[in-house]
C-alpha cells in the first residue's frame, strides 16, 4: 500500500508536518482544546503525528463555565482514553479575581472574557506555542493569518508586520516574551473538517447530531434553553425542536439549526448541500432549512 498525497489528503499531510514542527521547535507547546470539532480534529492529527509515542504536549481548555455539559463529558472521556494531560483554567476564576467583569442582559456571553484567562494561563505555564483550530476560511481577518503567528506579551497580533511564510518552512524563532499561535488546519474548510471526521471515524460530542432539545426563538435564531446560563425573556417561549449544532461554543452564544441529520454521513451531506448554495454561511435556521429542503428534494425522508 502507498501512503499517497494529493489524492488522499494533502491537508492532513500539511497539518501533521506543522504539528511536528511545533514539537521540534518549541520548548513548551500546548494544544488549545475547546471540545469542538476543530480541536477534536487537531487531537487526531497530533496522535497521528507522533504515533506510537503519545502526544508530547498537554491540552488546555479555557472553560467559560457555559459549555454544553455534553462537551465537557466528551472532553474528559477523550483525555482519559488517550492518556493525555489536560489543563483546565476557568473564566469563573478570572471573574472572581476581579480581572474581568461578567456581562449582563439579553446577549450576555463569556466569549470575550476567555482571552484574559487564556493569557494568564500562557504566562502561568510559560507556554511558547499554542496550537489552535482556527481556519482561514472562517472570516476575512483570518484569511491573512499565518500558520506560525507571532504574538507579543499582550497576546496581540500585529497584522501589518507578519513574517512571510515560504514553501514549507516555518520560522519558530521568537524573542523573549513572545509566543506563537499555530494553526495546523489553516487551509481546511468547514467541509474538509467534516469529511475528515467522517473518513477517520472520529468521535464527536452528541450535540453535533440531531436531537430533541428545549429551545426558544430570538432574532430568527434557535437558542438552547438553559435558564441558568442563557438569559430569556418571559415572552420567549420554550419549545421542543429537532436540532443539532453546526458549531459548538458556549450555550450563550451558539445557536442550533433545525436538522434531522442523525449521523456523520448525513451531517456531511447537509454541509455539502448548504455549501453549494451558501458556502461559509453562518449558522441560522433559515439557511439550514434550505439545506434540509434540498436533501428532501433529493429523496431524503
Amino acid at each position, binding site marked *: 500500500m502507498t501512503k499517497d498525497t494529493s489524492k488522499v489528503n494533502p491537508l492532513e499531510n500539511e497539518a501533521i508536518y506543522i504539528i511536528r514542527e511545533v514539537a*521540534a521547535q518549541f520548548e513548551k507547546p500546548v494544544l488549545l482544546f475547546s471540545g469542538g470539532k476543530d480541536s477534536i480534529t487537531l487531537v487526531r492529527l497530533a496522535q497521528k503525528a507522533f504515533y506510537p509515542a*503519545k502526544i508530547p504536549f498537554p491540552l488546555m481548555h479555557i472553560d467559560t463555565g457555559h459549555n454544553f455539559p455534553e462537551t465537557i463529558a466528551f472532553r474528559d472521556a477523550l483525555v482519559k482514553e488517550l492518556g493525555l494531560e489536560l489543563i483546565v483554567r476557568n473564566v469563573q476564576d478570572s471573574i472572581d479575581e476581579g480581572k474581568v467583569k461578567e456581562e449582563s442582559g439579553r446577549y450576555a456571553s463569556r466569549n470575550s472574557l476567555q482571552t484574559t484567562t487564556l493569557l494568564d494561563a500562557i504566562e502561568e505555564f510559560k507556554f511558547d506555542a499554542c496550537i489552535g483550530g482556527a481556519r482561514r476560511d472562517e472570516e476575512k481577518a483570518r484569511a491573512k493569518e499565518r500558520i506560525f503567528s507571532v504574538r507579543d506579551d499582550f497576546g496581540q497580533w500585529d497584522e501589518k508586520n507578519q513574517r512571510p511564510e515560504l514553501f514549507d518552512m516555518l520560522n519558530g524563532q521568537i524573542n523573549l516574551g513572545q509566543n506563537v499561535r499555530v494553526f495546523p488546519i489553516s487551509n481546511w474548510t468547514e467541509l474538509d473538517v467534516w469529511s475528515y471526521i467522517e473518513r477517520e471515524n472520529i468521535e464527536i460530542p452528541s450535540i453535533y447530531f440531531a436531537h430533541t432539545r428545549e429551545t426558544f426563538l430570538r432574532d430568527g435564531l434557535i437558542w438552547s434553553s438553559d435558564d441558568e446560563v442563557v438569559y430569556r425573556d418571559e415572552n420567549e417561549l420554550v419549545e421542543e425542536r429537532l436540532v443539532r449544532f453546526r458549531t459548538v461554543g458556549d450555550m450563550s452564544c451558539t445557536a442550533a439549526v433545525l436538522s434531522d441529520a442523525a449521523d456523520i454521513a448525513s451531517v456531511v451531506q447537509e454541509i455539502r448541500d448548504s455549501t453549494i448554495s451558501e458556502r461559509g454561511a453562518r449558522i441560522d435556521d433559515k439557511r439550514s432549512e434550505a439545506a434540509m429542503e434540498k436533501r428532501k428534494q433529493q429523496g431524503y425522508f
Partner: protein
Amino acid sequence: MEVLKIATAGSVDDGKSTLIGRILYDTKSLTSDKLEAIEKTSKQKGYDYLDFSLATDGLVAEREQGITIDVAHIYFSTQTKSYIIADTPGHVEYTRNMVTGASTSQAAIILIDARKGVIEQTNRHFFINNLLRVKEVIVAINKMDLVDFSEDIYNKIKADFETLMEKRDYQDQNITFIPVSALKGDNVVHKSKNTPWYKGQTLLEHFEVLDTQDVYNVGTPRFPVQYVIRPKTEEFHDFRGYAGKVYGGELSVGDDVVALPSQTKSKIKEIYLYDQSYQTASRRSSVTITLEDDINVSRGDMLVKVDDLPTIDKQFTATISWMDSQNLVTGNKYVLQHGVNKVLAKVDAIHHKIHPDYSGIEENISALGMNDIASVTFKLNKPIFFDRFKNHRTNGSFILIDSQSNNTVGAGFIQ
C-alpha cells in the same frame, strides 16, 4: 479531495478582485447575504451588471485605506477539487508578497488588461512565477468586452507575451492563454459566445482537468528528519522512528538509504503513519520511517537514496529575494533555515542585482534593499545537503532569519 493552490498576479486595475469574485459567483461559492450585498451595491452605483470585486471587499477596503497589502487566502471547491487562491497584490513594491504567494502555489494566473496589453508589471509577474518555478501559468487576457472581443488584440498580446517567454529560465513551465471578461463572465467558468474564435478551455475548466500530481516539480526523493519518535513504552521499547515529509520522489520499504551528514548507510525497514503501515511513501506524504540499523539520526539530518546524493557543501551561490527593511550587506550573518535544518550563514559576496522585469542585471552592488532580487554567495558554519533549485524546488530553497529580530528577512533559491 485534491487541492490546487493558485497564486494570482495583476496590477490594481487589471480586474483581479473582479476575477476572483466572478469565480466565486459562478461556482456558487458566495453566501446569499454577500450576494444580496453585491446586488444592492451594484444597483446603488447604477451599474447594469454585478460588481464582483465586492466579493473580496475586505481586500478592496484595504487598498483604499492604503494599509498593509498582504497575501490573503480564498477558498472554494468544485466536485473535483478544492481550490486555494493566494491573492497577492501586484504593485512593483510587493515583490516580497508575490514571491511568498508563488512559493506555495502550483499554478498562477497572470492578468493582463486587454486595452493595455503587456506592460512592465506583466514582466515582473511572469519573472517571479518563472523564478519560483510555478508549473502552470494561465495568462488571462481580461476586459475583452472593452475591446469588442477582438481576436486580433488577443493575438497581439499573446505574441508580445511569447516574446517575453523567450527570456525565461524555466522552459518547462506550461503557459496557457485565455481571453476573458471577469466582469461579464466570459470564459471564466462558462464558455463565452462572444469569442467563437477561441477554441480552448475556460479558466476553471483548465484547472479542473489538471492532474494535481503533475503540477509538482519532480526531483529525487529527500527525507528531512523533522522529529525523532521514541515512545519508550514497554510495547515499543527500542522503537526509533524518523518523522518527516517526503519531497521530490517516493521512498519504499527496502530502499538503501544514507543518513546525512553522517553518511551512514542503512535500509528502510518500515514506513507508516499512525496505525497504518505502507510499502511506499509518495511525494509530499507525512510519514514515519524506521531503519534496519540502529544509527544516529536527529532533527535536521536527511535520509536520501544511496545512489542519489545531494550536494554537501559549506558554500553556494543563490538567487535571493530580500524582504526586510534593513539592508543585506556583505559580511552580514543570518540564520539560514533550509527545510527543517538551521545553520549560520555569512554573506560572502553580492554579485549582481537582477531586475525582475527582464531588463537585465546591475553589477557593483554593495547592499540589497527590500524587494531586491540578487545573486549572492554564502558561506556556512557547517555543510548543508542541497540540490539546485532548478532540480528540486524544496531542497533547493531556504529562508534567512535575522538573529536579532528573529524575523524572516529573505528567501533564497540555490543556483
